[in-house]
């Protein structure tokens, strides 16, 4: 093989400059780079250039190309969005982005507690801030996402109890169910216990408990945004049967809502995307798993856990890995699942978010979300032919049944998209999942109601207030 790239000098490749390249080859006594590939059999050599698009070597050309592609997108700043279903449009304070875009955090990886003291402290603080919100003493360094966190939490329950059955008593996002199912299916069987009125049917669940049940799995808010009010009863039942109560949740409401740990949950898990992460087309998720500070539970956690430690200087705190020997790094297939590159940066972001929000911010946000959700329910339910999917308490998301309008949910979505509105997600032939956040103001909700009424062929029950923009 010749050296086709000998004259290819690129800003990303300092030693592509011919002079230094020659100097380095001379230093190691090699005639060409080809010598280094002596172990790669000739038969495996590609022997031709990869068929890739012509490169955009000048940064300005690259920027123009990629920006040109992205300019084809119309984002939720251009459209009025009521989309949720696992990825939520919350406001991200500027300081959050500032911190996670710092080169020191963005480009670091796995430094040791000394040179990467900042990373250890930032993630310890993330754990600690989440712990306050969740009222639990142990929270992991984030795993990939809420799907994985839940799969892992249930697997932990299986290992702890040595049992195989899991009762799924809430409505779960289908994609999340798919992931959890495929992840645990060798070890666990998921049994659906149909919900009643949007939340758990406690009696039905209790009836199916037994000494082969590893866990009851609750989602709150559920896939429809319903808040589970019966956690204490579920916990009591589960514990009586020797099973764990595993609660999947979104932490966004716990400025005002009682955290599951205070209602009997043994493992609480979920996603942190709501806490300071942009929507990113669904590409910014992180999973948390929280447990009590109980050695048996902690030793089943596969994730890294950063902990405080004393140092040679009295009063100074350092950081390090808690119970590192649990992990796959240390024990390969004898470890608990595995540890790998997951979502640390998003954890730092969530930590900054919680620090900025503080108790008052989380309380105000929780109340605002509850109020806007209720308001949106009222407005949409007032559209003729539209009624609420259930009577449960909802946070941020809820379903509406449009069967009375004579239109399918998909038809209504198409009609509203033509108005620049994403009214929600079709979760059934005549069922629409609608999401509101602190970025969805009263005027936005009113506009949805008006346009939905129009799409249903009926006039709205009141005028759209003038838009509240400057």
């Amino acid at each position: 093989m010749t050296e086709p790239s000998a004259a290819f000098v690129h800003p990303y490749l300092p030693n592509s400059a011919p002079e230094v390249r020659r100097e380095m080859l001379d230093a190691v006594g090699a005639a060409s780079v080809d010598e280094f590939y002596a172990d790669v059999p000739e038969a495996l050599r590609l022997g031709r250039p990869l068929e890739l698009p012509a490169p955009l070597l000048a940064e300005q050309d690259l920027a123009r190309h990629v920006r040109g592609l992205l300019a084809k997108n119309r984002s939720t700043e251009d459209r009025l969005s009521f989309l949720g279903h696992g990825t939520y449009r919350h406001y991200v304070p500027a300081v959050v982005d500032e911190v996670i875009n710092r080169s020191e955090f963005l480009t670091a990886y796995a430094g040791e507690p000394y040179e990467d003291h900042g990373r250890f402290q930032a993630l310890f603080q993330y754990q600690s801030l989440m712990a306050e919100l969740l009222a639990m003493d142990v929270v992991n360094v984030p795993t990939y996402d809420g799907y994985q966190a839940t799969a892992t939490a249930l697997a932990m329950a299986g290992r702890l109890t040595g049992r195989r059955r899991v009762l799924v008593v809430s409505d779960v996002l289908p994609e999340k169910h798919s992931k959890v199912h495929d992840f645990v299916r060798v070890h666990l069987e998921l049994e659906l216990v149909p919900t009643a009125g949007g939340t758990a049917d406690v009696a039905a669940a209790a009836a199916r408990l037994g000494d082969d049940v590893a866990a009851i799995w609750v989602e709150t808010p559920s896939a429809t945004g319903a808040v589970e009010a019966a956690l204490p009863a579920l916990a009591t039942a589960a514990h009586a049967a020797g099973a764990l109560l595993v609660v999947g949740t979104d932490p966004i409401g716990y400025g005002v809502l009682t955290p599951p740990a205070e209602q009997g949950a043994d493992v609480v898990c979920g996603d942190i995307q709501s806490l300071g992460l942009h929507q990113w087309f669904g590409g910014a998720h992180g999973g948390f798993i929280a447990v009590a500070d109980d050695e048996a539970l902690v030793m089943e956690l596969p994730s890294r856990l950063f902990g405080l430690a004393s140092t040679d200087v009295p009063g100074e705190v350092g950081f390090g890995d808690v119970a590192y020997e649990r992990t796959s790094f240390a024990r390969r297939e004898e470890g608990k699942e595995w540890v790998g590159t997951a979502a640390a940066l998003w954890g730092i972001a969530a930590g900054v978010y919680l620090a900025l929000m503080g108790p008052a911010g989380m309380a105000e946000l929780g109340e605002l979300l509850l109020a806007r959700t209720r308001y949106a329910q009222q407005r949409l339910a007032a559209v003729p032919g539209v009624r609420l999917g259930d009577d449960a308490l909802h946070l941020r998301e809820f379903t509406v049944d449009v069967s009375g309008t004579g239109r399918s949910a998909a038809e209504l979505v198409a009609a509203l998209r033509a108005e620049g509105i994403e009214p929600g997600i079709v979760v059934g032939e005549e069922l629409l999942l609608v999401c509101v956040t602190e970025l969805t103001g009263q005027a936005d909700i009113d506009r949805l109601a008006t346009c939905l009424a129009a799409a249903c062929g009926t006039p709205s029950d009141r005028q759209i207030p003038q838009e509240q923009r400057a």
Partner: protein
Amino acid sequence: WDEPVIFELSTPGERGVLVPAVEPGVRDAVGDVLAELPAGLRRAAPPALPEMAQMRVLKHYLRLSQENLGADLNVDIGQGTCTMKYSPKINDQLVATPQLTAMHPLQDPADAQGVLEIVWRLERMLAEISGMDEVSLQTQGGSAAIWANIAMIRAYHEANGEGEQRREVITTIFSHPSNAAAAKAAGYEVVTIHPDADGYPDLAALKAALSPRTAAIMVTNPEDTGIYNPAITEWVDAAHAVGALASYDQANANGILGITRARDAGFDVCHFNLHKTFSTPHGCGGPGSGANAVSAALAPFLPGPRIVRIGEGDDARFEVQGAGPQSIGTVAPFFGVVPNLVRAYAWIMALGAEGLLAAAETAVLNNNYLLAKVLEIPGASAPYASGRRRIEQVRYSWQELYEETGITSEEIGVRMSDFGMHYWTSHHPYVVPQPFTLEPTESYSKAELDEYVAALAEVAREARETPEIVRTAPHRQSVHHTHHDDLDDPARWAVTWRAYLRKYPEVAARLAGEPESTADASAA
């Protein structure tokens, strides 16, 4: 800085960011939603989050950032196996646009043509780079991608009615441990092959281990030693001969881009780490991004959703299809770590075919140059394959130095931090004694490699001449020698601040009682 834990900075009443008030019109319509919460659902006491004005939160985290050593700041070649390369800043800027950050994954695909096209194009480029037929970009890291590999393999055998029969997965000791761990999590028994005397993967041992019970071999190549398995085709063929699949962990692909491809060696499935080979930033440990590439035979098992192109050229449009009937289903939310997918796309587009090859060759040149320089340090060695060239990294050993001085590799790593250098100590598995693994990638200039080696040589000299300075390191860090035995004792570990205050009441008492002490901060 001697920056306190954030809870110590709280002042009652301060606010970091304000939330809009409930609109009067909403309030009038819904009443007091908190008062009307069902019994037990209203939180009794607010969470004990700190109360801080905005600038102080910012300052705190900026100071923490300065106590961290990112790849942008140091000569980050000590994180061997992890391919710490330059993540171009232009790519970070490109992904920061609201046209990406504010996209919801379930928007009308007509409104998402740009991002769908980029992901689709990236899949096709990675298919070409791997030689495979189809690519999925959903996983968020290398180990997650390994999981997807084994999940597809499992589904494949089940679809062929061999799920019950094939209960073993074979890997090598110098393949990433997540291969073993993920196979175990998927329910397989794991068989681990050790290298031959020269450090090469042992083909005979593989053949002895293969059987109709084998579901797959899962190997890295080059291995974490930097040694390329010259018999890799024979390995794959041997696996195929017993009906097993061959899965290729291409975490170490950085030296072979454009040189050789997974499919050309017969592999059925492979994955890349976009945060290694394709330059997306490591983010303190994620999000990364995994690319799973498969042959046509395994394509039906890929996770969903899938992005498909309809039409050609200027008329092309991109749509989203759900997972197919044989798919392993969802492995992660939606389309994967989208910001990293766009970054990886931009990185490939900035280099092209010639540039990828130049990157690989430069990484390999840098590594062999570094190898020559490191071997000049008395006490350092490169076990296995003596005298052979390596691909993109080398697992070295300080065993000679240790025998001479009693200084361990870990101690040397800590002392390196005093020189502003990083060198990680988790060289799983600990087969090579006193290991250290260096991977220079293509991103560092010769002068920087020389600087790193000079620091290593200096620490080795200290180990011989003034070992106490090494043993008592660090000396120039914002934190001092830390007592890690606290961390393995359930009674003493503290994973969160609240646990810390609970377990160490004397600390809680001191913090509650004392005013904030004078800063004894070292300068930036």
